[in-house]
């Protein structure tokens, strides 16, 4: 691959797309799960599936109807062929035999699932042009979620008949309780959600103090009470790593001070007050850091290539020039 200078704009597009993908995933998958469960169809979000070789995969959604159907959400705002092919490569990894252990009976069940790619409807046409595109459901996230069997159809007649012609699925009633998946959230999104909760933990009578104090453990407990487990009973939405990363980030932005040893966070009431949209501001801040990091990586790679005199290295350098 040719060496390319990381452009600020492309880093921004990438981060924005990651944030949007996460929000879309939560909304679409939780709504689809609620809809299917209402129809008495078992389905699970982020269920770990073991392969015969001892490795595992965690599809976004596993539907257990007459067949097993693995649904993975592939969100992209890019039409770039390389990006799209990359998504298809990821989908291929589900094309195998999995083992599912029944927790109650401890029995093991082997199955090869039908594989479905879930993607925004506007991207479907670009996937369609590529070879080896799996069964694809294109969705529109509207006031309701409309899902269309865009490329081919599953063999499972129950599931297949639901899309007649489109499956209209309301946004999950409890959507406000769902903030995080098991999979790692984009940093600006996580920080934004935590920043929101910090204010709800401010002392109720200190109205005009320029800053207030919140205890680390109180955030962890408070957040997980307000947003209880929804994927599985044992999976808390706010984990220590997510909280710590977000606090580091918010501290770097200047909105909080975190005294790690004392486990205390001081939140400024005024900093960030003039910011129009908190999420896009945090995205911009993260993009700047990420861009600086990538530029450094690029410069290091460039130095290494210049030092090497092999034809391959020279070709890469040529491409860059």
């Amino acid at each position, binding site marked *: 691959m040719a060496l390319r200078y990381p452009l600020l704009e492309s880093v921004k597009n990438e981060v924005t797309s990651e944030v949007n993908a996460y929000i879309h995933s939560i909304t679409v998958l939780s709504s689809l799960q609620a809809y299917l469960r209402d129809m008495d169809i078992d389905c699970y979000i982020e269920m770990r599936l073991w392969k015969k070789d001892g490795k595992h995969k965690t599809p976004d959604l596993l539907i257990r109807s007459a067949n097993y159907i693995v649904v993975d959400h592939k969100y992209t705002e890019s039409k770039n062929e390389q990006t799209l092919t990359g998504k298809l490569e990821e989908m291929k990894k589900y094309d195998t035999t999995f083992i599912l252990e029944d927790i109650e009976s401890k029995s093991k069940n082997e199955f090869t699932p039908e594989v479905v790619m879930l993607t925004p409807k506007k991207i479907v046409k670009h996937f369609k042009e590529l070879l080896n595109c799996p069964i694809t459901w294109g969705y529109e996230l509207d006031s309701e979620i409309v899902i269309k069997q865009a490329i081919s159809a599953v063999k499972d007649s129950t599931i297949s008949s639901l899309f007649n012609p489109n499956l209209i699925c309301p946004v999950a009633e409890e959507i406000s309780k769902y903030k995080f998946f098991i999979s790692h959230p984009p940093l600006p999104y996580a920080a934004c959600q935590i920043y929101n909760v910090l204010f709800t933990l*401010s002392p109720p009578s200190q109205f005009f103090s320029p800053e207030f104090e919140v205890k680390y453990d109180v955030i962890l407990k408070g957040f997980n009470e307000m947003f209880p487990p929804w994927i599985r009973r044992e999976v808390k939405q706010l984990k220590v790593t997510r909280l710590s990363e977000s606090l580091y980030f918010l501290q770097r932005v200047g909105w909080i001070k975190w005294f790690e040893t004392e486990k205390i966070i001081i939140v400024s009431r005024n900093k960030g007050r003039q910011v129009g949209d*908190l999420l896009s501001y945090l995205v911009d801040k993260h993009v700047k850091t990420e861009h600086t990091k990538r530029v450094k990586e690029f410069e290091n790679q460039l130095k290494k290539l210049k030092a090497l005199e092999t034809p391959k290295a020279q070709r890469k350098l040529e491409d860059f020039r």
Partner: protein
Amino acid sequence: MEVGALASLHFKLDKIHSSRNARPLHIFSVFPKIDLRAITNVARDAGVDATITNIGQKVYELTIISARKWRHAYGSLIDHGRIWNMLIRTVESPTVAGNIAERWLDRMYPAVCRSYVRSSDLLDILDGLSNIEGSKLEMRSYVLRAHDSPETVKNWKKDKPYSRREIERNIQRERKLLEAINFIFHVEQTYFHVRIQTDGHFVFYQGGQYCFTNFQRLILSKFNEVALMTHNFFSNRERRMVDGEAKISRIILEPARKLGKIDFESLSSHLRAKYSTAVLHSGNPWLLLNIIDRGDGSSFDLHGYPSKIQVVPFNRASPESLMRLIYAIYELFPLIKIKEKM
């Protein structure tokens, strides 16, 4: 007698405002979150000033100084417990009194919060007045306002009887908020002239014998009742844990027409001016907003759909903050209705 303090204040105001030269009195219905004794310290923390002197049970002399140019206004404060009435005049022009008090209240939020009612509540109060036997409601004008344009004053033809239907028709047609009504009310051989507003601000001009007492009895106390009912409606809406389950008490608002992408963009920018907001999703049309009230720490999620706006409170959601938020939405979509009965 201590009870006499209120009666004597009313008597004094009856006398002052039955004079032709009386300067308008600005009255505010507000919700306190603080003990009255703490008002001086709290005001200082808020960057303004306030002093009170008790002159009898529930009645205080009040002086307020706004932050801008340190202008001051004075008057009385009547403590009704959950609600206060501030009666403000100034040494400068009468309009200045209203401005000073409004700015002072802006700075004092969330320790002291203005009350808000719907346009229909103002019209209900007027309906109540027009039903009093032997009375006459003489409309002067009413004010319609859209959030993004200056107010429109609709003058009422002299001697034309009050008509709720006509006002409502205009609200519907112009899709604006009925913000204020200016009228004279004649009852028991006396009268008073007043302007009442949805944001709990009244301007009391003048009248005949017992003018202020009648205004207090027939309008201010009714408004306080409605404001308290609204406050009750928005109370205890926080997210709570019940048997290990997070219970949500969402508020659903139903617009008079389908909302679209442009409406949601306006809503986001309108709320951005008053709150810290994060737009999680906007378009298609579906709006998902996180809202933080930095004043008192209340937080909400707002979901906008074409046929409803849903406000979902977090674990802190004060009734005052919710009232302000719903009023802010109402400023933008004046015909919107709360689904639940208040």
